[in-house]
């Protein structure tokens, strides 16, 4: 596996910025924003490593969600719990949002609209591309949700969300 460290750093930095921007949108306090940034950086680093290793986008996204979910569960450890409280799960979600495949979703919808034109050119190819985009959206979101949910449920107590 060839790892381009500069590319990895680029993805981590912009993943951190994107996650902290979403944290701000969700009304996180200034105290939690570094946690959001760390969560986004961890998610994008893991996903980039997975993609560099030749995994599919869905598999890499799943691994990234599991990594972020495990990180969030560590925040429930006594030492870190006083600093972050119950913020762990929310931080994990904020970190995973930069991996939501919005661009593929847009491509899929554009493709569907183009297919319904009166005389679409290369309709067969377009249909395959559109279906591929749609399936990638569905499977990637499923991978993110599943990765986060599995880690949250492994250590779940009845009132663990409190």
């Amino acid at each position, binding site marked *: 596996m060839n790892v381009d460290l500069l590319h990895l750093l680029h993805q981590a930095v912009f993943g951190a910025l994107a996650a902290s*921007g979403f944290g*701000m949108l969700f009304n996180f306090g200034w105290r939690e924003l570094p946690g959001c940034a760390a969560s986004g950086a961890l998610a994008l680093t893991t996903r980039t490593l997975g993609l560099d290793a030749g995994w599919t986008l869905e598999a890499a996204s799943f691994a990234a969600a599991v990594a972020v979910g495990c990180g969030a569960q560590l925040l429930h450890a006594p030492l870190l719990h006083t600093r972050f409280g119950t913020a762990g799960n929310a931080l994990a979600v904020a970190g995973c949002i930069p991996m*939501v495949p919005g*661009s593929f979703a*847009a491509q899929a919808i554009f493709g569907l*609209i183009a297919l319904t034109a009166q005389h679409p050119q290369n309709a067969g190819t377009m249909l395959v591309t559109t279906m591929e985009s749609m399936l990638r959206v569905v499977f990637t979101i499923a991978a993110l949700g599943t990765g986060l949910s599995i880690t949250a449920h492994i250590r779940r107590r009845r*009132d663990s969300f409190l």
Partner: protein
Amino acid sequence: MAYRRGNDDSPSVKVVTQSGQAMMKDCMNIPDPKNTPNPVVLNHRELEQVAGAALLVAHRLMETGSRAEVVHESCSLVARGLGCEHVNLRSGYASLEITLDSGMNTITRMIEVGTLGVNYRLNHAIRDLVRRFREGSGTPAAAVAEMTRLERDTPRQPPWVVALWVGIACASFGRLLGIDWAAFIPVLTAGAVGQAGRHLLVRRGTNVFVVAAGIAFLSSTLGGLGARWAASTTVNLAMNASVLLLVPGVPAVNAQSDIMEGHPELGGARAIFVIMLLMFIAIGVLIAHGIVGAPS
């Protein structure tokens, strides 16, 4: 049971929200049980107050981004902390219903839920309140008063700070998607303007889908024209990156969690909301592509 019957020393607190006002009215002037001819009526009134307080907690948790299980657990803990024996909650996308049992008495109440959003600080302040009230140390009136105080006093980031950070987030997303550096500032500006516009429209009460289409059009057009002006070679990606502030990430994750955790109706409704919102965003971007002239 920590909640005392006939407790009439509840604090009189000015309540801001309409639903809170109605509940506070119900929490006042509970008659002393010794002077009440019909104790069953008294029990019903007490249950009604508990239902009001528990529903208010559940309602606010839903509106601030909690998944169904958190809402159910929180509501149940508050109701039990206030003295109920059995609690049943049904959560729909637009309403919540609760049935409380205590001894021979049963009561069912419903509350409407408004637009579902995300407000981390208010959500976690409410969870702290649930933690306090589950110990059985409060009254329904105190719970409602505390909820009202939290809604009033929980701070929010200034809108211009949020707009700037959202712009930075969109531009960062753009870099992850592959936009070149020339498109970075145009996407940042388009994202920030889009967030400012969204804030104004949401405050005016505009329909959330109309807001999504309108802001997608505005941000995408600004991002595309700006990127073209800056001689970017990734105008198409810049237009898509400018609308990433609208991607409903939390509802998408919550939809899946709800289905996994045994709430398929709410999860399904959330999933449909996500699909509809994506379609409205796509319509806005598609019109912008027609104006800017970039291939979609």
